[in-house]
């Protein structure tokens, strides 16, 4: 495979995760907004999850590229 799909996919989830984390942090005091999600700041929490999933994908892709070069 010439382009590892995990690379662009991982990058996208890193960016989307960061957007959610920042947005979640900024709106953390807005309790009214988070009554929908039953009082949890879902943006902050799930943004972190997406961020780490994205990082994992990028790391895996880079490792695969390195072994392929060798």
């Amino acid at each position, binding site marked *: 495979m010439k382009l590892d799909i995990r690379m662009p996919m991982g990058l996208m*989830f890193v*960016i*989307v995760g960061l957007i959610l984390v920042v947005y979640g942090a900024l*709106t953390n005091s807005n309790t009214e907004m988070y009554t*929908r999600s039953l009082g949890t700041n879902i943006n902050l929490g*799930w943004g972190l999850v997406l961020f780490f999933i994205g990082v994992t994908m990028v790391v895996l892709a880079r490792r695969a590229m390195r072994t392929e070069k060798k």
Partner: protein
Amino acid sequence: MKIELHAVDYVILCVYFLFVLGIGLALKRYMKTGEDFFMSGRSIPAWVCGLAFISANLGAQEVIGMAASGAKYGIMTSHFYWVGAIPAMVFLAIFMMPFYYGSRARSVPEYLKLRFDEKTRGFNAISFAVMTVFSSGISMYALAKLFELLLGWNFHFSIFVSGVIVLAYIFLGGLTSAIYNEVLQFFLIVLGFLPLVMLGLRDVGGWHELILKLNAVSASKGLAPGAMTHSWAYTGSPTANPMGVEWFGVVFGLGFVLSFGYWCTDFLVVQRAMAANSMSAARRTPLIAAVPKMLFPALVILPGLIAISMHYQTKGMFLPVENGQPNYNMAMPAMLGHYYPAGMLGLGLTALMASFMSGMAGNVTAFNTVWTYDIYQSYIRPGQPDKHYLAVGHVTTVVGILLSVACAYAATKFNNILDFLQLVFAFVNAPLFATFLLGMFWRRSTGHGAFFGLLFGTLAAAIHHGLTIPAGSAVGIHGGWLCGSSGGDTTFMLLLWAAFLAIFGLGIVHVGRGEGAGNDDLRIRLGKAALYFSPVIALWTVIIKWFPIEPRTYPSDMAQNFWTAIYAWTACFVATILISLVTTRVRTDEQLKGLVYALTPKIKDHDIPWYKQPATLGLIVLAAAVVLNFLFW
């Protein structure tokens, strides 16, 4: 029902669009030959193919439709997964992939040509090409309609944006681009909907609370309390369960005919496995796909269950109500709007958008290959250099998208026409699996047998549909049009068909004779068949005008569908065998090598580790599906 989007939601949607186009751009330089563009150069690893394989099927109609079915029918909806999909995927992986991948075929219709003959391929290629364009158009229409209703987006704007983006990334990166975006969409759907299920489940008070509430919903429909929370227990009689089907229809109609017909012969999904980088990877593709497929009910059916129990608990405030009935199709959008704040809402809608677009892209790439290889290269301009067909592929992408747009607009004007076409394709597809089964496992089956078997199967489906009707439906698109009773006058339509067949038959016989074709020519035979058939229809129309018969009623359209499929399959199976026995076999054993089971050397799997052996993986997947069926019995 309206959902308001904030700036952050639009930002997330835009990030997704940028990456989709970026992937297309990055792949552009690898698209050098026709094989790169149409078949990804057969270079994709198994796990990528596997995820694309289910993603291609996980269009938005599936996401929205399964949540709707979950809300309407309860846990029985899981039959579409644990009975419908899994066994067929295992069968495809173990028994059919060796022929698809191992033969020189580049598409499913091309396999039919190698195995049978030109006319069987032509029939399949043309019906498939038309079907893909319509499915892609319906996807577009559904997306634009939903976003108009939900977000207030302009209908034309949605069509334009989705069309342009899908066009751009397929044009640039061909099948690889479509496959990569399907993988991206897979993760988006999982990661976008998982928190929704968790929040919903917490809100209803956990799984046990959900079951209790569903029991109440079920009782309010006049069924036994457990009818919506068990998949098999109430299938002894069609009137005891919300779906209105009995176990035989589920097992044979859905589990055997419909699902094997779809998963094993539909080029849209099979193309994903054919792009794999080795035979072993191609065979593992459906098995890798089966694992997440088995777990999808938790992601797409469960939200429907939660939505209906919340609807019941809030006394009809959760879902929009139309004519006193909750609008089940809004189950998924209602869940998104109810539980997601700005931010996550952007992610959820991006996932929905992605599934609409990959549904379109999947159809367009399949259309590209079938049009270019099976229609253009075979009938219009054969023998051109590879570059020529690559260019045709690019043009076809544009044409395919334009046709989809046209279909999307046709759907706004003639809703019934699309229903009608889907019905016709259901008739064409249901018998197809019989043709493949006999083609792959019985060397004696002939081209004439396959082709006329398919025609008979299609005809049987149409006749069954015309003589039956789901309870409470009007005569017409739902059935009953061959009965001449129960309201609805179909005389005019039937006479129109008779006239059409007569003119069509006369026409092709005339053209064929003009070109000096003998009685053996297929055109002459088909033309004569149509000619003889037309007075039969006319006579039948007149008879039922005076002596109307009562159509047989099924408890639900689902039950009618399953039985239509069963009749179509059986008719095709029997007709193919009979016609094959009275016609001479043209293909020799040597020609059928690699195409028929008994004439193909068995693949030896002993030297690969057990977790890569298709048979072992298949057994594990099947065992897991059985366990799931028992858990929710």
